[in-house]
């Protein structure tokens, strides 16, 4: 069958985009993988391993696996620091690519986790070039502009982490030891251990606040983000594993499942930590960069005060910043929550536009495992759409 003429554009180089690209490449389809930032792997590549004595099935390492496969696959052409300027349709898709702007607030040097994937260090400010490694690549040298013709499009542009500053009373970015779950992943990933930002010391008493930005009627965020309970509990167990003396309190509404082993895992969590079914509202600074919160006791409803070394805000998955622009460019719709709408509530990959498919969190909250499965499904649908068969 004539497979050599088929080409697919995948927008987004996170776990969903990587998976879709790799699956398509297995069927001899050429893939143009467009990534706005200068690294592949998206959010998930920044996550740390949370294994205790055993793997806790967070899936962070499977992102590494997929990244390695993609960068060694010649049929996948990666365009870093690149975005879609315009797209028109005349049977196939005509895409105009342009260089994307360097992210603001990067202090001139970006370092990535995409180990074998060049570049590892990118300078956005030429004045910083000397300070960075001699292997550093300038942002200006990256990026593709020009025209592409593709037969189908996979949108895998992902999510944005909920901006914890929108919940002002928690004092995120005001108090150094109020961090988000994503910050905590990066701390563990870059430093190999959980430490307080204020002094680099291991915190002894830690609070996790669940549902920050999710299940929040006042914000209009009427969805559960799926991932926050799993990552918070896994991280909490990891902290207990490293330091059995650490005291952990989890403030929650409803604890969501991790994986098949959840009942046993949850029993262990309840034995090792304190669970309070109450979401505190205010954080007050105390001496030594410690933080105090007031909440209601589960057992008798009395108001309690407790002080912590570190507070972790379990931020959720918010719709991608580019979703509206992407929907307009592709002439597809957003759903009620601001994610891109699938044409069918059960299939969830096809859109109202023939030849345009969704993969991963661009469609709604998903775990790493669910994003991989969704991207595989999208690739399968693309292959059926293109009528490609494997020899």
């Amino acid at each position, binding site marked *: 069958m004539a497979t050599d003429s088929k080409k697919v554009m995948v927008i987004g180089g996170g776990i969903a985009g990587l998976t879709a690209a790799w699956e398509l490449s297995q*069927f001899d389809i050429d893939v143009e993988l467009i990534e706005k930032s200068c690294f592949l792997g998206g959010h998930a590549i920044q996550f740390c*391993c949370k294994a205790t004595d055993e*793997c806790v*099935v967070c899936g962070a390492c499977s992102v590494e696996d997929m990244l390695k496969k993609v960068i060694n696959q010649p049929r996948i052409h990666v365009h870093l620091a690149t975005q879609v300027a315009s797209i028109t349709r005349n049977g196939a898709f005509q895409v105009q690519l342009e260089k994307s702007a360097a992210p603001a607030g990067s202090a001139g040097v970006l370092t990535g986790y995409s180990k074998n994937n060049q570049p590892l260090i990118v300078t956005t400010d030429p004045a910083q070039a000397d300070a960075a490694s001699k292997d550093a690549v300038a942002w200006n040298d990256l990026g593709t502009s020009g025209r592409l013709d593709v037969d189908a499009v996979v949108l895998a542009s992902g999510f944005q982490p909920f901006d914890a500053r929108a919940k002002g009373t928690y004092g995120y970015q005001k108090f150094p030891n109020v961090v988000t779950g994503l910050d905590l992943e990066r701390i563990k990933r870059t430093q190999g251990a959980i430490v307080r930002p204020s002094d680099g010391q291991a915190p002894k008493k830690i609070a996790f606040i669940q549902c920050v930005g999710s299940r929040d009627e006042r914000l209009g965020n009427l*969805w559960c983000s799926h991932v926050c309970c799993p990552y918070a509990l896994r991280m909490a167990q990891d902290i207990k594993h490293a330091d059995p003396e650490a005291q952990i309190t989890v403030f929650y509404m409803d604890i969501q*499942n991790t994986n*098949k082993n959840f009942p046993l895992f949850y029993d262990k969590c309840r034995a090792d930590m304190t669970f309070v079914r109450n979401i505190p509202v205010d954080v007050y600074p105390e001496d030594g960069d410690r933080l105090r919160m007031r909440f209601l006791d589960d057992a008798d409803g009395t108001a309690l005060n407790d002080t912590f070394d570190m507070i972790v805000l379990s931020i959720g998955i918010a719709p991608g910043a580019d979703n509206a622009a992407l929907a307009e460019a592709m002439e597809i719709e957003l759903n009620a929550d601001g994610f891109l709408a699938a044409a069918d509530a*059960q299939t969830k990959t096809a859109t109202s536009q023939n030849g345009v498919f969704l993969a991963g969190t661009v469609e709604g909250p998903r775990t790493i495992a*669910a994003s991989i499965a969704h991207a595989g499904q999208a690739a399968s649908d693309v292959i059926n759409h293109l009528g490609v*068969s494997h020899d």
Partner: protein
Amino acid sequence: MTEEQITMNTDVLVIGGGLTGLQTAAEVAQNGYRVNLIDAADLPQIPDAVSANDRIDVMTETCLIGATGVAGNFNVQLKQNDQVVQKQVGAMVLATDLRKQPLHDVYGLALSDTVITQSSLDALLADNPAALAGRTVAFVVGLAQESNPVVLERVLRAILEIQKIDGCTVYVYTGNLKVAADGLERLYKAGRDQGATYFKLTERPTISSNGASVAFHDPVLRRDIEIAPDLLVIEEALAADDMTAQLAQTLRIDASAGNFLQIDNVHRYPVATNREGIYVVGGARDVMPVPVARADVGNVALRIKQLLGKGETRVDARAVLDTGKCTFCLTCFRCCPHGAIYWAAENKPVISPVACQACGICASECPMDAIQIVDFSDDDILAKVNERATSAGVEPTIVAFCCQNSAFEAAQMAATFNMRMPAGLRLVKVPCAGKVDIEYILSAFAAGADGVMVVSCHTGNCKSERGNTYAGWRVAEAQRMLEEAGMNKDRLVFATVASNMAHEFSKICVDLEAKIREL
């Protein structure tokens, strides 16, 4: 390297004729493969997409009772009534449905007109919803089990149906509300907006035997709350089909607790089992909402297309068996985690190059050293060990056997980020820690290494499931042998890391270096 051309049978067996099984059959048939769809029950409703498809052959009241062979060439025995038929298939899809399990026993209740299961309520709402007019209906959910989004969605949808009926009142007693699926938070809100009252409890309420009184102590209001519903709806658990335990045994599939046919191993997502050519979808692998099971269907279609192609595949041999050395002891057959070794007609073991993952566990376990892994033969590895142990020229010299899936990656990352590493550290890449023989470890010491590390994946994260377990056993045995020889066993370390644990890898190495300096 020897490339082999292998003929693949392109028929596919799908086990289970529920929604996911039917969708799988249709999708696989659409890709041009013949499908045998079997189900233990009679299937009253088979959609046209399946029944009218001449590539799909449906056999009802049929069970799989035996299977031999490997991916591309399975021989299966199917039993329909009292007749046994043999079929050859290239791949299998396990697509059994979930089974509903009423949990009234856990609440100490007997079912009656006023105490009913979720399934009975669903039937009532479909057949005669008017019968519920004016009634107070209470649900108990998530208090007899750790619930899940599929269980919760049934409750939330039933509540919205009840709220369409005149004069109904709804109460829900719940543990953790499992809203982690698309749209559930909105369904939950819609029910509450229309008056459903939720009590979130951590313990089961006190329920009278006829269900007419449900009481608990509210800690916030500091009082007992008792409600007298007309109808009490008891949650149901969703369990793997009864036949999955037997399927796991017949097909040599690693099953999880509850007999789901996939263990929680990140390398198996989404639809793989421990055996090539045997895939698992939907309720056969986990409790999942319909859209997630639908994703499995797309994935399994891809995997089958990739495996079977047009009926021929070219593969490189990955493990080579010296039949002259083989004593037919069956060790390899038993220890292969991928079921890649089968018995050929001439009574000798054959390693299928299609199913083999080249982990090397069999090669290390074989008492006759009759199996060699391509690119990782004993001679190759021992030569590397000797070179690494003697070439560092720095004291202490540490030889680290690193699994290529985890430790070797972590080591590369540590080097890329300029993390601290002992100057005398030398790596030996192995396909899986399960390939590290005791002989390799002892050879490293004999060649002059001051320390040896075997670094594998975490428990539960091994691509070959048990490679790290074998490695741990062998290191323990080698430590015993070192002690007998008068050496300190702390010179030999077994550790586990993930591919992204550069820091931890660096620390393990540096710690061993410090330890050796102490000794």
